[in-house]
């Protein structure tokens, strides 16, 4: 297999646009960050002009504000309320439709409704979100069965990643080992470098043969030692801006040993059980199936996002298993940080900070994890 990443090139914004054009010519639907309703969201983009030029963000627990930057960066912000999962695992997706012929003795006809959508190209995926995509690939594709809808979209996916230069105050990727530098899982990787100017330039490298082909088509110069040093500075600077962290040493045992910790009750006093954290989380994968009557004799079955924070989620004939908010928050956090490791061999948390920013009451998973660790009656070896 070819090795990638050894060659880095310097390009301008214009060449980044050429890459976008090349992807479009190849038939990709290009999706990237753009400003909508006072937030940076991911939508279909046509040109770099659709990106949040010179826009940054300020995030804190329960708070998100856009701010104007003094430069013309394209990626001068951190995690957004959207994650890329909405494109691979849409919030609602038709699984099949079923038609019952008027003649009652004729069997129903099932139409699997496989859609041939154009392949997707994600523009500007941060390291935390690359890891989130890798995690959802494990969930949806690596079991005994795979999710056909997810597979059809993930298979042809092209990823242009960006090294994260401006983490927000709610980020904690470095402690989860998921950033800010992107290490794998991309076709192309760019680093946006300002160098004291208003206009940034970019270092680009390939992570796949498809990425390499694209680089071959654009105007570029070899990155100099000085460029590489600047790239290093960008990453180091980003690392310095990350102040939140979760200690992951023995974290699975820590949570398994603390299912009865009094802190859960304290969190439950604040948690609104609104499910925001699960919807903004780039790895949360829960869903439900619903039947929707369309017209006479026709039904559609849809897969829609669900959340472990709802009372109905665990409904059985004997009632809901998790009736209390305490039990639902405990399930979410314990799953994310502990049982996920048993289920998929990896943590379910990538440290993107979305659950902290978008919690209406500002519950902070890093703070709660630390409190549980510090007050755990069973000491976890570290």
């Amino acid at each position, binding site marked *: 297999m070819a090795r990638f990443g050894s060659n880095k090139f310097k390009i301008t914004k214009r060449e980044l646009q050429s890459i976008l054009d090349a992807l479009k010519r190849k038939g990709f639907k290009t999706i990237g960050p753009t400003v909508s309703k006072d937030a940076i969201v991911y939508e279909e983009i046509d040109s770099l002009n659709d990106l949040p030029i010179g826009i940054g963000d300020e995030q804190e627990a329960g708070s998100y504000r856009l701010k104007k930057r003094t430069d013309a960066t394209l990626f001068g912000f951190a995690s957004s309320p959207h994650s890329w999962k909405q494109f691979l695992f849409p919030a609602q997706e038709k699984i099949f439709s079923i038609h019952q012929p008027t003649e009652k003795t004729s069997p*129903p006809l099932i139409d699997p409704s496989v859609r041939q959508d154009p392949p997707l190209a994600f523009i500007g995926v941060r390291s935390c979100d690359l890891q989130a995509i890798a995690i959802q690939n494990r969930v949806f594709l690596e079991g005994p069965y795979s999710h056909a809808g997810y597979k059809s979209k993930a298979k042809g996916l092209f990823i242009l990643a960006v090294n994260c230069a401006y983490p927000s105050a709610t980020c904690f990727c470095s402690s989860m080992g998921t950033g800010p530098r992107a290490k794998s899982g991309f076709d192309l990787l760019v680093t946006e470098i300002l160098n004291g100017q208003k206009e940034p330039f970019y270092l680009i490298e390939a992570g796949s043969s498809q990425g390499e082909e694209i680089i071959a088509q654009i105007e570029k110069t070899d990155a100099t030692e000085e460029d590489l040093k600047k790239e290093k500075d960008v990453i180091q600077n980003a690392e310095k801006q990350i102040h939140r962290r979760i200690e992951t040493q023995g974290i699975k045992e820590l949570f398994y040993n603390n299912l009865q910790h009094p802190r859960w009750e304290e969190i439950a006093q604040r948690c609104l059980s609104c499910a925001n954290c699960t919807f903004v989380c780039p790895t949360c994968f829960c869903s439900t199936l619903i039947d929707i009557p369309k017209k006479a004799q026709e*039904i559609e079955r849809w897969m829609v996002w669900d959340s472990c924070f709802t009372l109905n989620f665990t409904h059985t004939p004997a009632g809901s298993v998790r009736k209390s908010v305490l039990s639902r928050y405990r399930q979410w956090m314990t799953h994310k940080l502990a049982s996920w490791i048993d289920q998929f061999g990896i943590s379910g948390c990538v440290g993107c900070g979305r659950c902290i920013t978008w919690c209406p009451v500002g519950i902070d998973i890093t703070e709660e994890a630390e409190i549980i660790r510090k007050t755990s009656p069973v000491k976890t070896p570290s």
Partner: protein
Amino acid sequence: MDHLPDFPENPFIPKPFVIEEKKRESPSVFSLYLRPIDQLPFYFLPGQFNMLSAIGGGEAAISIASDPTNPHILIHTLRIVGNVTKALSKLDKNDFVLVRGPYGRGWPIDLVKRKTLILVAGGIGLPPLLPLLYIAQKNKGYFKNLILLYGARTKDDLLFMPLLYKLKAEQIITLHVSVDRPSRDWKGQFGTVTALIPSISFDNKETFVFSCGPEIMMRFMARAFIQKNLPKEHIFFSMERNMKCAIGICGHCQLSPFFICKDGPVFPYEKIEHLLTVEEL
């Protein structure tokens, strides 16, 4: 990214089955005898389940209650408890049912070959154990002894009694039945099914227990057997949780590290014992 392997077709697509017979088993329980319209045999392992739905009525996980040696007729026994089972209960002979499955890990039948097997069933927990009774009936000598402890709320809630009495008469099973609330005409045992356990004698090394019923019943059942020195690892539970996908991707049926749908529904008691004592897990 072009490194992802190929996978089989959409696992969510069900197959239509036609109802060949519908039987009422109790005031709130009925059985559907189903035949696949493609006429292909339906193979399953005792203890596995299917996702069942009336067209447009939503899906529910229902254990398979039929004879595993006869793959041409699929039997499901359901209690009417919610919208899905209610919609299924309104169907009649010749109507169509959507089925996908079988799913999950069933009873460890190889482990109990030529051994004494005690089945402990509570109420609607009996149907997932029925395939084992059919195995004993078709394959005499498969088990050294087969003992069924069966409990229900009232006499009217007892299911499959003609079949059970027949198996008892044929000396295929030893049968102990108990009801929680005895009516005047009830001549048998009463009280919880777990109360039957102390009076049963068995060889600890050669005896296994498979149980399906309310979680609380299964916990007390396990305790009662352990008190009689049955090794913990000889006890197996079939667990129930909300299930939507049946393939471990919808998240609903989680019990700490386990997805009941694909890691279970049958679990060795030893594996889940510590999880059952945590409320609302």
